[in-house]
């Protein structure tokens, strides 16, 4: 038999340390649905989704039950909808979005990503239609998530698109003002968008992945925190020893995701794609990245040392995860969504965690400025400036970075906003020098690709 202490430690991970599979995301390519008749396009979309994903929820429940591991979210990610919108206008965008919404509802899925445009060098007519339709789409639909890739290390930064997105985000917030701008929580702006990310709102089905794929998002902040606490309880330890413990724990957590993912894919007769190693927190106590940083010795997250601590955590998770799985992909970084992590939200409330420190963290480890509440009077140019800064970090460092910014209509810095459930609650952040970058943004054009993009 397996060693009894190992059995008991696995049981502890599952029962009392919040280990779960955070997302099983089915990617579906919809490009074959393209055509000039939008009604026919929508019928084809609905047929393909409801056929391919008919048993996704059922199989996830069966496999999760077999191992008594919760599979928290079952999601869908489709190929970029902008491709289906070539030759169509804005009403078509809403029709497709509503079809995605209905299809997701029919198969029991709560979120579907892929309302996506990849515009790092320029925008096609279909991509312009998609971007302009975002306020209406994200207001009128419940389940549709959108993403726009405005930059890449190979292409540089499309500052025309960045400028447009500042206005679009403001408009989405206004369109959903009854929900404190919640529509913006369903839009991510990316640099170097990954084609196989299983997490919402930025998931989409990239090209080259075939017709259908299963990608997995694991989670386990609680497991890692508990492992660190047990290590520290045994006596004084060095940061290297703590990193080693994180690595070992990340190995075990990733193996859970790999096992579940391969079995779900096998049952559905779909190719297994990747395991995303990102530690995704939730607002629940004990499921927090902030708590891990606190356990590492940063009592006020955002204080000096926070970036180094997060770098230690992210690197150790990647090392453990890479050994556990030969199919690692997606974002595989540190998630620090302020609203979705109660400890980070509290640090922001108290002024320890600022927008500037969050940006510093994204430079080496975090995947972006995520679930950031902004004052309602923020200028579109300042939103664009925040995006541009984040894109520059991703482009220069050849990593994925992203923004999920939520201007709250009528809201001021320090106001508390709650979206409830997994979306959490937190304060509106302080934004300095509102509008001081207007001339920079208005110039538009393309910030060229950096010299390190020349890799041949």
């Amino acid at each position, binding site marked *: 038999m*397996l060693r009894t202490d190992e*059995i*008991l430690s696995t049981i502890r991970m*599952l029962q009392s340390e919040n280990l779960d599979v955070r997302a099983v995301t089915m990617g579906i390519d919809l490009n074959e649905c393209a055509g000039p008749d939008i009604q026919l396009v929508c019928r084809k979309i609905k047929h393909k989704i409801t056929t391919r994903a008919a048993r996704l929820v059922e199989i996830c429940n069966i496999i999760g039950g077999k191992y008594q591991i919760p599979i928290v979210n079952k999601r869908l990610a489709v190929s970029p909808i902008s491709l289906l919108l070539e030759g169509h206008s804005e009403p078509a965008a809403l029709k497709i979005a509503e079809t995605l919404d209905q299809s997701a509802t029919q198969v029991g899925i709560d979120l579907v990503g892929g309302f996506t445009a990849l515009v790092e060098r320029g925008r096609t007519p279909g991509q312009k239609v998609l971007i302009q339709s975002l306020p209406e789409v994200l207001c009128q639909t419940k389940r549709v998530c959108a993403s726009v890739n405005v930059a890449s290390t190979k292409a540089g930064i499309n500052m025309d698109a960045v400028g447009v997105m500042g206005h679009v985000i403001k408009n989405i917030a206004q369109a959903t003002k009854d929900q404190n701008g919640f529509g913006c929580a369903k839009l991510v702006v990316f640099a170097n968008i990954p084609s196989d990310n299983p997490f919402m709102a930025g998931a989409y089905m990239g090209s080259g992945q075939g017709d259908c794929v299963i990608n997995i998002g694991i989670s386990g902040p609680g497991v890692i925190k508990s492992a660190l606490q047990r290590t520290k309880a045994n006596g004084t330890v060095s940061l290297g020893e703590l990193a080693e413990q994180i690595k070992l724990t990340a190995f075990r957590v990733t193996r859970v995701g790999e*096992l579940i993912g391969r079995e779900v894919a096998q049952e559905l007769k779909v190719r297994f794609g990747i395991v995303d190693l990102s530690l995704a927190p939730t607002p629940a106590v004990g499921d927090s990245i902030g708590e891990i940083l606190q356990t590492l010795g940063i009592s006020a997250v955002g204080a000096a040392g926070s970036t180094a601590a997060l770098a230690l955590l992210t690197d150790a998770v990647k090392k453990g995860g890479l050994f556990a799985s030969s199919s690692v992909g997606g974002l595989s970084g540190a998630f620090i969504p302020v609203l979705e992590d109660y400890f980070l939200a509290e640090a922001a409330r108290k002024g320890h965690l600022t927008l500037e420190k969050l940006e510093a963290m994204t430079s080496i480890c975090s995947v972006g400025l995520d679930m950031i509440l902004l004052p309602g009077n923020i200028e579109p140019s300042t939103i664009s400036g925040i995006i541009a800064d984040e894109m520059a970090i991703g482009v220069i460092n050849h990593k994925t970075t992203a923004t999920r910014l939520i201007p709250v209509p009528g809201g001021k810095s320090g106001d508390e906003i709650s979206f409830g459930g997994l979306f959490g609650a937190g304060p509106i952040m302080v934004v300095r020098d509102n509008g001081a970058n207007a001339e920079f943004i208005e110039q538009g054009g393309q910030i060229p690709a950096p010299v390190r993009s020349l890799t041949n």
Partner: protein
Amino acid sequence: MAQYIMSITAQDRSGIVAGVSDAILALKGNLEAASQTVHQGYFAMILLCAFPDTIVEQEVTRLIREKAGSDLHVFITTYQTSWPMKTNCQTQSFIVTAVGPDKPGILHQLSAYLASKDINIDDLYACIDGNDFIVICQVSVPSDLDIFILQSDLDNFGKSKGFTAHMQHENIFVATNELRLGKISS
């Protein structure tokens, strides 16, 4: 040659295996399989041995005690290759764990429940940890049984008897603790 199953129990000390194997060798026997553990200070071993047809069981017991210690408890029986109680159905390996405040009857209640479902216990470990009694069983579950129903039954059964019980496929423990993934069956 005739095959025998032997089980040996004694207070643990060095030299028991040396003495037992010496006795087998002296009787011109062959040790074909063995498993041994030390639990709570006691040595326990089960062996499959082949001896010449002329050997009598009492002689084996006598020589083992002479070579390994007169306090040894030795049980020996003819090895049967057909098991009338064992079914030929396909099974999958699960790990059943039960934890609860220590009181008489937990293992009996759990094992009786498993037996009622024709679920065989292949391996078992039990101990007291503080005030809790912990049981871990590796079991073979017939593939035609509904796992969800079993898990629900076990959960309700445990609650009614005052302990927490779980049943999970062994692959999850293999995946998180060993450098292999485990076999995925359709």
